[in-house]
């Protein structure tokens, strides 16, 4: 669908969220993210723990049917009940029955049965509160954030901080409207005190306490609750009936398996080394039940003489999870421990919050997997494109879920579910891709095949540039493929990098030129990514000059696209074909011992990450281990004796601001660039923003232009005071040049020798 009328609506909705909720969410989410990073840094064995946690989840999901049997036996032996609910209605009906019976047993003297709850995304998923209220049950959320959401009649905007989008002032207003209290609501402490008193009373009166579970230990029947407020403990042990509702994916085999998660979950969620309360209850517990009203209120709580009259129900929810387990691509989602780290690490989440970057229940990067699995693909379609594949969540996830890949897969499936577009002829002739006729929207096919577009635009430059800059063309581009007319378009160079290199004598001449440097006996193939080849040709030339000056002869063959552009549009078949073509063309060079040098970090990220899923293992390994980011490569050359004097150096403490690149950071490749800058006499300062917000095609799209600029402005703000700014990615440079109104070259253009 070429001129999707919803583009404007999406843009409007996101713009509204940017101005309202985003303003509040951004500082909170980015603060949580910074705290998470610091808490991770404190762990010497972080990677071991993440790998261990991941392995436990993999095993648990693999053994799930067996673990369900095990936990049933354990809980029943303890005196509790296990109910496996197929779907939301099934779970809700069961819980309503339990409440009904508990109330009939009647310790409550009020008219309606009442339930107190601790925060649980799983009960949000099944809309348990609504279901119980329809049955005449009063339900009170006791986690303060969740309670505020309940009062506001909204949905959570963050997996861990449900009311993250609400300011203190707004919360005060909501509570004043609802309760008309006698006390002043000036501070967070005032609000908290009011909530504590009000909810404390609800807990003391309740017939049933409902909790979720962060982990359910199969062989002992132990429910683990990780909280900071203490409300989950109170809900679980005060009323005589405790119901725990948990997705079946929360099962882990044994208590030993809990340790890495306790070590990780508070760090990843809130940046705490451990949360206030890690409650491991094996219900029914021996704790006495508490009756604050009635005749028992004046009997010692221990009077029942060890005879606990507690009742416990574990409701294990399927609701689509078994199908996810059987889905090779969505299965990983089930490893999620719901810490929200992927939300906090996400620049787009920071901008619009979970009401923008989220579905019916779940929010943030992992929400695509959950929503697609539990509520269907359409539920994920609405927000899936907000994942730009920047990969900053990859390092954040405590169980190593490849969240960007899940987003790519679901995008691919959403594309395929659509009818072939009416404007497909516009790209069909231009770009024979592997998705032809499959329903991939026109804009996605355009951006996914951007190399072909760039080649044509370069061949017809400067006419193409001039045409693209005219009003009617911009209007057409906006209407058909949704390129926002406010965004500057790339300026295509008439002479591509490959042509320039050939015109200068090709590989043979390069070998002659490289003889002036120290002989390192290495040869490099420079990968001419689309942007370097046709747009940012200068950084390609600087790379060639740098490598030659350091004694490395270069070749710059014309090579296929990496498939990065296709991947970002969810066109996996096209990316897969590109990966094979590119590997095929590079194989002989790699076999001849040449190093593959890459300038654009997102292309290198494809070689090192996504190609694992697209190429045979041996091919992937060969390409991965023989390809280098340009500054990483230069760093290696300098370490191995190349003469730094051959580069363009500064006096020793010349300040330079450096924005790495989201995917480059995930590959741990920010450091080599700063190291090279330092060796060349600069004092680099790096940026804190996760991503520039441009993210390839994302910032061009009409529906996302404002979100993109919002992220860019955060980054630009950091760089405002810096006289000299460099950035590794084409997108980052484009975004920053527009916002800072000055050139933002690649570091190699600063370091490369003038010639």
């Amino acid at each position, binding site marked *: 669908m070429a001129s999707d009328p919803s583009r404007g609506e999406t843009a409007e909705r996101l713009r509204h969220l940017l101005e309202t909720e985003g303003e509040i969410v951004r500082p909170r989410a980015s603060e949580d993210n910074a705290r998470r990073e610091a808490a991770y840094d404190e762990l010497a064995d972080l990677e071991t723990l993440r790998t261990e946690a991941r392995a436990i989840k993999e095993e648990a999901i693999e053994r799930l049917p067996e673990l369900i049997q095990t936990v049933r036996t354990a809980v029943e032996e303890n005196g509790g009940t296990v109910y496996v609910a197929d779907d939301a209605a099934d779970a809700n009906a069961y819980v309503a029955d339990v409440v009904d019976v508990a109330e009939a047993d009647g310790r409550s003297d009020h008219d309606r049965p009442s339930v107190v709850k601790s925060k649980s995304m799983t009960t949000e998923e099944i809309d348990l509160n609504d279901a119980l209220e329809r049955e005449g049950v009063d339900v009170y959320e006791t986690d303060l954030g969740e309670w505020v959401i309940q009062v506001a009649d909204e949905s959570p905007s963050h997996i861990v901080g449900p009311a993250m989008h609400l300011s203190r002032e707004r919360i005060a207003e909501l509570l004043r409207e609802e309760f008309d209290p006698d006390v002043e609501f000036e501070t967070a402490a005032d609000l908290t005190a009011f909530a504590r008193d009000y909810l404390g009373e609800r807990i003391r009166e309740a017939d049933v306490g409902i909790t979720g579970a962060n982990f359910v230990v199969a062989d002992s029947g132990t429910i683990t609750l990780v909280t900071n407020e203490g409300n989950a403990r*109170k809900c679980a042990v005060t009323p005589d009936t405790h119901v725990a509702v948990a997705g079946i994916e929360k099962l882990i085999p044994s208590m030993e398996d809990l340790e890495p998660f306790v070590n990780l979950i508070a760090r990843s969620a809130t940046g705490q080394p451990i949360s206030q309360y890690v409650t491991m209850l094996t219900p029914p517990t021996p704790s006495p039940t508490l009756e604050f009203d009635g005749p028992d209120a004046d009997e010692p709580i221990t009077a029942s003489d060890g005879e606990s009259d507690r009742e416990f129900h574990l409701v294990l929810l399927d609701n689509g999870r078994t199908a996810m387990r059987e889905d090779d691509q969505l299965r990983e989602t089930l490893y999620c421990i719901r810490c929200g780290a992927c939300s906090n690490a996400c620049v787009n989440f920071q901008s619009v919050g979970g009401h923008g970057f989220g579905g019916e229940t779940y929010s943030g990067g992992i929400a695509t997997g959950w929503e697609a699995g539990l509520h269907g693909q359409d539920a994920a379609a609405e927000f899936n494109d907000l994942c730009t594949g920047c990969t900053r969540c990859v390092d954040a996830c405590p169980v190593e879920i490849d969240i960007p890949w899940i987003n790519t897969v679901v995008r691919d499936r959403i594309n395929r579910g659509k009818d072939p577009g009416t404007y497909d002829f516009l790209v069909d002739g231009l770009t024979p891709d592997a998705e032809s006729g499959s329903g991939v929207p026109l804009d996605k096919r355009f951006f996914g095949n951007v190399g072909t577009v760039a080649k044509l635009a370069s061949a017809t430059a400067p006419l193409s540039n001039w045409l693209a800059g005219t009003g009617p063309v911009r209007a057409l581009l906006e209407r058909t493929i949704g390129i926002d007319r406010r965004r500057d378009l790339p300026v295509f160079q008439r002479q591509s990098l490959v042509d320039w290199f050939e015109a200068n004598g090709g590989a043979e001449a390069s070998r002659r030129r490289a003889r002036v440097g120290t002989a390192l006996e290495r040869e490099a193939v420079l990968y001419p990514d689309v942007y370097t080849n046709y747009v940012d040709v200068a950084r390609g030339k600087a790379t060639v000059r740098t490598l030659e000056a350091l004694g490395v002869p270069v070749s710059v063959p014309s090579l296929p696209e990496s498939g990065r552009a296709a991947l970002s549009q969810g066109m996996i078949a096209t990316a897969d074909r590109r990966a094979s073509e590119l590997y095929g063309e590079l194989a002989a060079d790699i076999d001849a011992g040449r190093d593959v040098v890459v300038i654009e970090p997102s292309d290198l990220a494809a070689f090192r990450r996504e190609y694992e899923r697209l190429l045979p293992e041996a091919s992937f390994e060969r390409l991965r281990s023989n390809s280098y980011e340009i500054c990483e490569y230069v760093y290696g050359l300098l370490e191995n004796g190349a003469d730094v004097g051959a580069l363009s150096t500064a006096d020793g403490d010349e300040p330079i601001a450096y924005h790495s690149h989201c995917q480059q950071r995930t590959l741990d490749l920010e450091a080599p660039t700063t190291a090279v800058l330092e060796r060349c006499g600069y004092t680099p300062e790096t940026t804190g923003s996760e991503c520039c917000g441009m993210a390839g095609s994302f910032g061009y799209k009409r529906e996302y232009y404002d979100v993109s600029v919002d992220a860019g402005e955060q980054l630009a703000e950091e760089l405002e005071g810096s006289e000299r700014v460099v950035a590794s990615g084409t997108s980052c440079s484009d975004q920053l040049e527009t916002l800072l109104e000055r050139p933002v070259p690649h570091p190699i253009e600063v370091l490369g020798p003038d010639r």
Partner: protein
Amino acid sequence: MTTDTIGRFERSLAALEVTSEVVPASAASERIGTAVDDPAVGTALPFEGASLPDAVTAEPTPAELENAATGVTPASFAVAEHGTVAIASSERGDEPVSLYPDRHVAVVAGSDVVADLGDGFDRLLEGFSDGRESVVFATGRSATADMGGLVHGVHGPGEGHVVVLEDR
């Protein structure tokens, strides 16, 4: 247990703004009496030579629990690394007594203070095999940031004090 471990435990507690003291068991009763705000409730201490002072109501009623300013309970063990006390659920009501009043005073044997979370899990698993299967790791004071700023003392205690028995 080493002196270092107890020192580390106390430093972790201090960072959480939880006070602590190291005393002999014979002084425990008097020290607990000083550490509580009235009215105080508590559960029996299983340490030889250490008992609750008279001012602390053992075996409280729900009404007394609701009105108590302080709850005193033993801890099964403690984790120095994080300043964590492990409170096991019991028929005596350790769980609610440690949770309901605004101030919690935990009493732990010095020999039960372990270095890190790994050792804590070893102790936890021992307890599990002995039937003590409901335990909370409580670290610092109850807290929330949901109301637009960090506040302590939400549903759980807003103040904490730990008495470490040096000779137990």
